[in-house]
C-alpha cells in the first residue's frame, strides 16, 4: 500500500479514528484513470457530434461556424473535460470513478465529508497545481507535504485517504485455536485457490503438524474442520 501516514481524528468516544492517507502514487493512479475517462468521453462526444453536424466523414470545424457548432459540438466536450472533477466530487461528496477504483476518497481534515465549498475550492486551485505542465507543481507538492496533499487540498483543507471498503474479517468459530492462528487459517482458506501447492503447504505447516504428508484435498478438509471447531 502506498501509504505515507495516518490521519488521526479525535472522536467523542475518546478513541481516535485513524484514516490511512494516500500518497503520490495512489493519487496519480486515480488521476490517470479519471484523466483517461474524461479524455475518452470528450473525444467521443466531439467525434460523434462533428460527424453528425458535418454530415460527412470530416471532423474539421466549418469555415463559418454557427451557434449550433459551438453549442452541440464544442461546448459539451469542453464541459465534460473541465467540469468532470467538480461535478463528480460535489455530487458524490468526494468520489470520482478514478478515486473509487483506486480505493480513495476525499475527506476534510476532521475526517468527515468535505463541504461543497471545499470541493469547489480544491478544484479551482487546479489552475495552480497544473503549472507548468501536466500537474507538475501539484505532484511535487504531494511529494513534499506531510499528508501528501496538493495546493488545492491545502487551500480547501481536504486530503485523500484510503476507503478500506475491501477490509474483510477472519471468520473463526474454532474454540481450540488461538486468535493469531485462527486469523492465519482464515486467510489461508480465503486465498486457497490463488496460492500454489508449495505456499499452501508452507503456511498449513504452521498450523497442522502433518501437513507435509497430506494430500491437497485432505489438507483443505482438515483446515476447514479446524475453523468449525470439529477437529
Amino acid at each position, binding site marked *: 500500500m502506498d501509504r505515507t501516514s495516518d490521519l488521526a*481524528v479525535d*472522536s467523542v*468516544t*475518546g*478513541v481516535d*479514528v*485513524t*484514516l490511512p492517507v494516500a500518497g503520490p502514487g495512489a493519487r496519480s493512479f486515480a488521476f490517470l484513470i479519471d484523466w483517461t475517462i474524461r479524455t475518452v468521453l470528450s473525444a467521443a462526444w466531439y467525434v460523434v457530434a462533428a460527424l453528425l453536424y458535418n454530415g460527412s466523414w470530416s471532423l474539421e470545424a466549418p469555415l463559418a*461556424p*454557427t*451557434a449550433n457548432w*459551438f*453549442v452541440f459540438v464544442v*461546448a459539451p466536450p469542453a464541459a465534460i473535460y473541465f467540469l468532470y472533477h467538480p461535478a463528480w466530487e460535489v455530487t458524490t*461528496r468526494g468520489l470520482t470513478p478514478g478515486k473509487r477504483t483506486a480505493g480513495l476518497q476525499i*475527506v476534510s481534515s*476532521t*475526517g*468527515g*465529508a468535505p*463541504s*461543497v*465549498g*471545499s470541493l*469547489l*475550492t480544491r478544484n*479551482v*486551485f487546479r*489552475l*495552480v497545481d497544473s503549472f507548468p505542465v501536466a500537474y507538475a507543481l501539484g505532484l511535487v507538492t504531494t511529494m513534499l507535504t506531510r499528508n501528501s496533499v496538493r*495546493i488545492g487540498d*491545502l*487551500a*480547501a*483543507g481536504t486530503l485523500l485517504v484510503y*476507503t*478500506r*471498503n475491501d*477490509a*474483510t*474479517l*477472519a*471468520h*473463526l468459530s474454532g474454540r481450540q485455536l*488461538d*486468535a*493469531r492462528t*485462527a*486469523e492465519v487459517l*482464515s*486467510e489461508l482458506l480465503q486465498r486457497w485457490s490463488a496460492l500454489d501447492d508449495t505456499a499452501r503447504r508452507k503456511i498449513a505447516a504452521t498450523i497442522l503438524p502433518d501437513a507435509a504428508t497430506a494430500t491437497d484435498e485432505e489438507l483443505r478438509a482438515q483446515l476447514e474442520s479446524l475453523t468449525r471447531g470439529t477437529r
Partner: protein
Amino acid sequence: MSESSRENALRLTLLRRSDLWEKAAARIRRLAGKRTEDAADATAMADDYRMLAHDVAKVRRLLPDSRAREYLEATYAQSHASLHRPAWHPGYALLNLFRDDLPAVMRWLRPHVFWATALFILTIVAGYWMVHTYPDLIALFASPELIATVERGQLWTEGLLNVVPSSVLSLQILTNNIVVSLFAYCAGFLFGLGTVYVLGLNGLMLGAVFAFTGQHGLDDDLFRFVVAHGCVEISVMCLSGAAGAAVGEALIRPGTATRAESFQRAALESGKLILVCVFLLVGSGLIEGYISPNPAFSLRARLAIGVSYWLFMLALLNGWLFGLRRVRSGASA
C-alpha cells in the same frame, strides 16, 4: 492463569464479537449517504459507534497487526463519517451564503477591495498615460489586427454580430472572463504577486486601449460598447483581485494561526466571493454577447443596463436581496 493464556482468552473473546461488527458494518453500508427518519436506525448506529470504539481500543492492544484490527478500524471510520455527516440542505445553504456569508466576506475583504481597486485604477491611468505619451507602446498591449482596425477608423467590435453569433460570443467571453477571474484569485498563492500581475496587466491594457482609441476619435464608441457589461465586469475583476490579495496576505501575515491554517481560511472564505463572481460574469458575458455589440441599443439604454446590473451586484454582495437588514432589525428588536 498465566498472563499469555489470559491475553489469548481476551483475544478470542474479542474475535467472537465479529458477528456484531459485521452487523454494524452492514447497517453503516445500508444507511451511508441516505436520509433516514427511523429513530431505531439512528439509535442503533449510535450504539454501533460506541461498541466499535470500545472494540477498536481493545484490538489495538490485543491484536495490533491483525486483519481484525484493519476491519474494525475501517468500520469504525465509516461509522464516524456516517454519524458526523452534516445535514445537506442546498436551499438553506444558498440562502445562508447570500444572506449571511457573503456580506461577512465583503466586510472582511473591504480593505483588500479598496487596495485592489486603487491598483487597478492606477494601472489604467498608467496604461493611458503610456500610450498617450508614446503611441508606439500600444503594440505591447494590443494585437496587430486590433491596431490595424482602429487605424482604419473602426472599432474591432463593429459588425461583430455579423461574424460571430451572440450565443457563441457570450460563451467565449464569459469563459475567458471566468478563467481570468479564477486566475487572479488563485495567483494570490504566490504571496499576492500573481494577483498584482493579473490586475496590473488588465488595468494597463484597458488604459492603453482607451488612449489608443482616443487618438483615433473612437473612445466614445468604445465607451458605448463597454458601459453595459463593463461596470460589473471591471468590478468583478477588482473583487477577484481582492480575494487573491487576501489569500496572499494570509500567507505573508498569518497572524496567530499557522501559515497553512491562515491560507486555508482565506482561500475558503474568499472562495465564496469568487463563486458569486463567476455567476455575475455569466450575466456580464450574456450582456456583452447580446447587447454591447448590438447597435440597436442606445447609449441611454446601455447606461441603464450597466448601472442596474452594477446595483444588483452591490445588493447581492451586501445581502440586501435576501433580507439581511430584516434579520438584523429583527434581531435588535
